């Protein structure tokens, strides 16, 4: 266990934990955008910057910085608040269409950004380049259908050559993890259309009710989980009925923030 101090409060967290774990244990509020508990730490958005005042004086990205015994953290130190403010101001210029960013900025007292939007960014833009979609596709799904393209200010996320992503299984995890709702997915007729990736996958009909419900490329799961054979081919609603369970299942579609 690691014992450390967050905002004058002593907390104890398991070995291997990050500063973010300690901040959460202390119940302090700290926004994160590129962080997801199910994925490897990344540290890109720089919104979770906190001041470390001991054993050295520095600003640290809480989500990736390992917690150390005896460390003293101040989430509200002026330099940390100011650093997060600038991060938000730049994210607001990059994603002027994101309600989440607008709300976070408003809470930090920022009504509009002083900075120009990067080239090619319009008022509807919501992507903040946090990379959650890329990482969930690679780390959790194992498909690696999308990747970062270009560098610096020209960085963006996309499928290879902005064409139909052959590796995409249409699972929709990218849209699910996106914190700003930048990934557009729509089920229309027998198709799942992943607008953002210029990709479409066919949907399978439920053998019970006949409604379209699952992307065809996900059929590989039938071989992976033979025990589900009896329920295979059923939509979540029919499956719940068949299994004697009536649970509400949220369909996987892009969500707005």
């Amino acid at each position, binding site marked *: 266990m690691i014992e450390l101090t967050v905002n004058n409060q002593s907390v104890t967290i398991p070995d291997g934990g990050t500063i973010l774990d300690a901040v959460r244990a202390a119940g302090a509020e700290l926004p994160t955008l590129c962080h997801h508990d199910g994925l490897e*730490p990344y*540290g*890109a*958005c*720089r*919104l979770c*910057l906190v001041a470390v005042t001991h054993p050295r004086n520095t*600003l640290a*990205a809480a989500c*990736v*910085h*390992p917690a150390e015994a005896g460390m003293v953290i101040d989430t509200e130190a002026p*330099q940390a608040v*100011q*650093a997060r403010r*600038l*991060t938000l101001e*730049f*994210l607001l*210029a*990059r994603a002027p269409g994101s309600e989440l960013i607008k709300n976070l900025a408003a809470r930090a007292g920022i009504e509009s950004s*002083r*900075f*120009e939007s*990067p080239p090619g960014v319009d008022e509807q833009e919501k992507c*903040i*380049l946090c*990379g959650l979609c890329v990482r969930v596709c690679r780390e959790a799904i194992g498909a690696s259908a999308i*990747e*970062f393209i*270009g*560098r*610096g*200010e*020209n*960085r963006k996320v996309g499928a290879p050559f902005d064409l139909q992503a052959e590796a995409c299984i249409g699972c929709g995890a990218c849209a699910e993890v996106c914190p700003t709702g930048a990934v557009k997915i729509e089920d229309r007729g027998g198709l799942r259309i992943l607008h953002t990736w210029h990709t479409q996958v066919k949907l399978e009909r439920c053998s019970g009710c006949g409604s379209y419900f699952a992307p065809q490329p996900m059929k590989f799961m039938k071989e992976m989980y033979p025990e589900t054979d009896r329920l295979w081919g059923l939509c979540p609603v029919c499956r719940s009925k068949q299994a004697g369970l009536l649970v509400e299942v949220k369909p996987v579609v892009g969500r707005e923030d």
Partner: protein
Amino acid sequence: MKPINPSELARLKEVGLSTLHPPGLRIAVGMATCGLAAGAGAVYEAIKEEAGKTGLNLMLIKTGCLGYCQQEPLVDVRLPGRGRVLYAQVSTKAAPDMIAALAQGRLPAEGPLAVIAENGNSKEIRLEGFDHLPFLDELPFYRRQQKVVLRNSGLIDPASIEEYMAGDGYQALAQVLSDGDPERLVEAITRSGLRGRGGGGFPTGRKWRICRESSEETRYIICNADEGDPGAYMDRTVLESDPHSVIEGLIIGGYAIGAHQGYIYVRDEYPLAVEKLTGALAQAEELGLVGPNILGSGFDFAVTIVRGAGAFVCGEETALIGSIEGTSVEPHPKPPFPAIQGLWGRPTVVNNVKTLASVPIILRRGPDWHRSIGATGNAGTVVFSLVGQVANTGLVEVPMGLTLKELLEEVGGGGLNGKRIKAVQTGGPSGGCLPARLFDLSIDFESLTGAGSIMGSGGMVVMDEGTCMVDVAKYFLAFTKAESCGKCTPCRDGIRELHNILSRITAGQAEAKDLDTLEEIAGWVKACSICGLGQTAPNPVLTTLRYFKDEYQAHVLEKRCPAGVCSALIELAINQEACNGCGLCLRECPTEAISGKKKSPHVIDPVKCTRCRICADVCPEGAVQVVR
């Protein structure tokens, strides 16, 4: 050839000595990239052709870089019985006379720069007919230099492992393996005071120890040869001129940390370096100096050369590791440091080319010898590529602790064309600009960092009074903006905004509050970026704001560029007294902004003029002047 045993090193050393000091004529042409750019390739061919025509028997060698790039093509002529002379700025036209003289048994009279001293060629003996000529190390350019990393550069044939061995190459490796005590080896490097020469200055011995003490069995060592700073070519020169010193250092480092696989990550924009390195590695493998059971010691070590695809950020060690692994190239947060968790998640040491090239000679001459060079806490030498508006440009190696003034005035020979040096930028695009009033600063890691710059990997750009510091900051930010990988917000978006503001300032469109914003963003990018690229990219802005605030204010408040550089803020005019009415400017002006009768003074129409300065470049009288 088959794998050799340690005793055979002595035999190969003799072979190397016999080609370095053959009984007959030996001509070595400096053919590193700097030499080739100056035309050394054609000079080599011309000498070869002339010698063929006259039937002159000679050994013609392609050697590396002696450092005095400005004097290239450099030709080193060794005529037994007569002496050894270095010729500068040799042209193809000089080849026939050169060969004719040598065929007559005398040294050519044209273009000698210095006498090269050899064993037995003591300083008292001057060459007949060359009495006025100084020895090479007496030239002002070389007098303050001390060659450790560049000890063989330009003197040996980089394609010959035997010539490397002539200077006791691979002896340190043989000694280390026969000692069989990696612990003592790490101790020796620690005691030598060697610090990372890639710019970070982390103690090499300590890095090796951290990796060595890991509980993980599989470990790696990587040579970082992804040198990408504009105006910097230290690593390239070492690889082109003395590749074996790097390979030997890498094997020794691998032995020290318990690695059996080493990598050399070299940028593919250095084709000659890749070629020399590949050739050298093949020779070392053939002799069993790389591979299984090296010199019969039981130690196995393989080396793989990985060619970088051109992203500047790959010079950052975590991004470099990602590039070797084949993932998209982005830096990772540290900790964990590579020495704990690096390539494929295993403990990995990443050392710079110059760090590794220093290792063999430090072991041969002893840690105390190395400690005795340089300054306290900053042992050894530092290699700079001295470029820009300085009289002597080239690759220089000086003991740490020398002052900037000594380096610029003595080695560099002062400003170009006698102009006053205004500032110097150390450490590549992420370094800081230091003003002339700080030139008493000692060249060491801490002093440069304290003044807001960095040692970096060793670029040194000299600027004179004709340089606009705002324009310089804009130039470097344009580079880091283009090379930011885009992963983290401060580096990706902050550098872009810094560049936007600098562009507005140089265009005369900035307001006073922009200067505060500039400082605010620069500090944020420096403090909050993930990797060294972002953390140092604002240095040119921060240091020019600190030392040349008046120039910023002139641009912003008075809409004036004091150095007369920023085209939006200047006006060109023709000095009516100086103009002889030759009409050259009128003919060359692309916007027809110049008018005037032949043989009477011309004038520039400021409305049509785009400040391209072609008129100033072509005017034989220097009559075109910046008037605002």
